[in-house]
């Protein structure tokens, strides 16, 4: 078992025919993901790299029975594509796009709250259940099937964590990038809950960063609800206050959102800390 995606997932890519859309959809298909279609308005009817293209998400879902949509469209059109996917009833929407205006996401979140869809991201690497299904831009070959769940606000730092696990022969159940934006669809707690319920996940790595209080809220949730061990690293201990560190969400504003403040709460809640990003694999091995 795993969470969110598996070998039964049926993927469509929104923005399939673009350069990035094509590259990463093919990489996902090569990994074993069941890619059933793509959407590019105006290019419906064509077959791109062996994948049927549709004009709308509605049509794609109707024809292919897709249940997962990967959003690979440029930031100014991305919110619209997410909204269309929600309206078309896609169960799981994974938005890779970076740089979507915050106010667009505020509207998306409101619509999302009243829908049956789940959104992962935006500004995230996607999700992978090793050996079964990859939806996103992560390099598939560094993963291996196993029992560690990985959740992260950062893309490449997730790869780092996975790499360290695989080097130690520790496999992963599912790896989820929830994204670095201040407004996203799925948060740490949603994923922790899924991992706690997943019988094949034995432990979880949670990678956070400075800014906001998602990690401290998650820590309290873990203390009250979770039996499986959690290891956590917070990126940005060396970051100065008031400077946005790339991610729109990674900025120290209040003082309670520094790495140190977050570590303190995490430790109080019984979470194993990896204070160095090079210790993620080692610390996880210590709790298994």
């Amino acid at each position, binding site marked *: 078992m795993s969470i969110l995606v598996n070998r039964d997932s049926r993927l469509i890519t929104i923005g399939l025919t673009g350069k990035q859309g094509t590259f990463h959809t093919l990489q996902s298909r090569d990994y074993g993901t069941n890619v059933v279609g793509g959407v590019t308005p105006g290019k419906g009817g064509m077959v791109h790299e062996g994948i049927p293209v549709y004009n709308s998400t509605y049509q794609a879902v109707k024809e292919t029975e897709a249940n997962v949509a990967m959003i690979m469209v440029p930031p100014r059109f991305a919110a619209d594509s997410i909204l269309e996917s929600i309206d078309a009833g896609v169960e799981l929407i994974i938005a890779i796009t970076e740089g979507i205006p915050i106010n667009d996401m505020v509207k998306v979140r*409101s619509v999302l709250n009243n829908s049956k869809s789940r959104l992962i991201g935006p500004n995230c690497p996607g999700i992978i259940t090793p050996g079964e299904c990859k939806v996103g831009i992560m*390099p598939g070959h560094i993963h291996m099937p196993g029992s560690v769940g990985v959740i992260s606000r950062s*893309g490449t*730092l997730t790869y780092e964590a996975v790499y360290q696990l695989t080097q130690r022969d520790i496999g992963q159940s599912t790896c989820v990038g929830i994204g670095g934006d201040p407004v996203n669809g799925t948060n740490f707690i949603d994923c922790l809950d899924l991992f706690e319920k997943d019988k094949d996940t034995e432990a979880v790595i949670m990678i956070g960063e400075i800014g906001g209080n998602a990690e401290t809220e998650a820590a309290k949730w873990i203390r009250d609800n979770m039996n499986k061990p959690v290891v956590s*690293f917070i990126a940005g201990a060396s970051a100065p206050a008031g400077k946005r560190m790339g991610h*729109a969400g990674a900025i120290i504003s209040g003082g309670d959102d520094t790495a140190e403040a977050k570590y303190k709460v995490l430790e109080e809640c019984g979470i194993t800390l990896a204070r160095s990003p090079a210790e993620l694999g080692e610390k996880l091995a210590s709790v298994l």
Partner: protein
Amino acid sequence: MNVHEYQAKGLMRKFDISVLDGEVAKTAAEAVEVAKKLGGNIWVVKAQIHAGGRGLGGGVKLAKSLDEVEQFAKEIIGMQLVTHQTGPEGKKVQKVLVEAGCDIAQEYYFGIVLDRDSGKITMMACEEGGVNIEDVAHNTPERIIKVAIDPATGFTPYVGRKLAFAIGLEGDTMKKCVKFLSGLYELYTQKDCSVAEINPLVVTKQGDVIALDAKLNFDENALFRHPDIEQLRDPTEESADELEASKSGLSYISLDGSIGCLVNGAGLAMATMDIIKIMGGEPANFLDVGGGATKETVEKAFKIILNDKNVKAILVNIFGGIMKCDIIAEGIIAAAKSLDLKVPLIVRLEGTNVAVGKKLLQESGLAITAANDLADAAKKAVSAAKGEL
């Protein structure tokens, strides 16, 4: 993106939000002209820099005569203003805003921000104005009244009444406050602000509701649909290197250390800085090349890193996903050739197209120290920066 107070107030006027009459001046003579035009017998001369705490630093003065306007403008324009937000070196003041005075009866705080937990735009009010709102939020959070706005309805008058009543306003003043907040919400949403802060908002002895100060920040990701806001950008307020980097799609922030970092992904870039520090070194910068970098942008990134004369070693840490290792390798090779690279270069490549990338670097004949993993890379970079590699 940050704008000056006078620019923020200019925008507010367009949205019918009441601010004091005033104009910006670049010289003392201009300041006097503005004061004459405004009339009255009391004026405020305010330094225009992108930082708070200007009053405490001596950048805001109350002038009781035209002579004083001239004198204060002379003092402030050209001064190196130091506040708690500028850093110890301060910021050079290029312009002042000259405003008409007003009879203040009471000061309040109003703000609009995004509440990350609910994902909603949230309006805040506090009975105490002119204070550091972070301190109030930390020490006495119950004194800040918050109302989250449903994006489906937007601002509706009850939201304004709720906030106005909560801070003790009544009658006509309450109504003026509701109008003020309605306008501010429209400005916030229509222009894609990320912060709108009025601190203080004042009620005058005549019962008017006016923004005495105004701070607006804009969402960089939404500037594509607001060319009018983009035009307000003051390049002298931003670091030349950071500006140059953002033009190339790079996210760069200059720091004080000696190890230049070139990383893909914001999280990994921060983690790389963190581990450098853990290993006993100091990062010279945060630099995320992003996912869409080309050979040229990587070359540009090297150029920007090397502009910092404190850099004694460069650590390249790439974990390819959307970014391909061979593109990075090509960029490194091009940069080493065109920039006459003299500092030690430590490279750690992993992920998408890693084999091709490593091969390119090997065949280039460049003096590159390869690193096996994150810890190894950081250790080598720290040694190299100390001249011990």
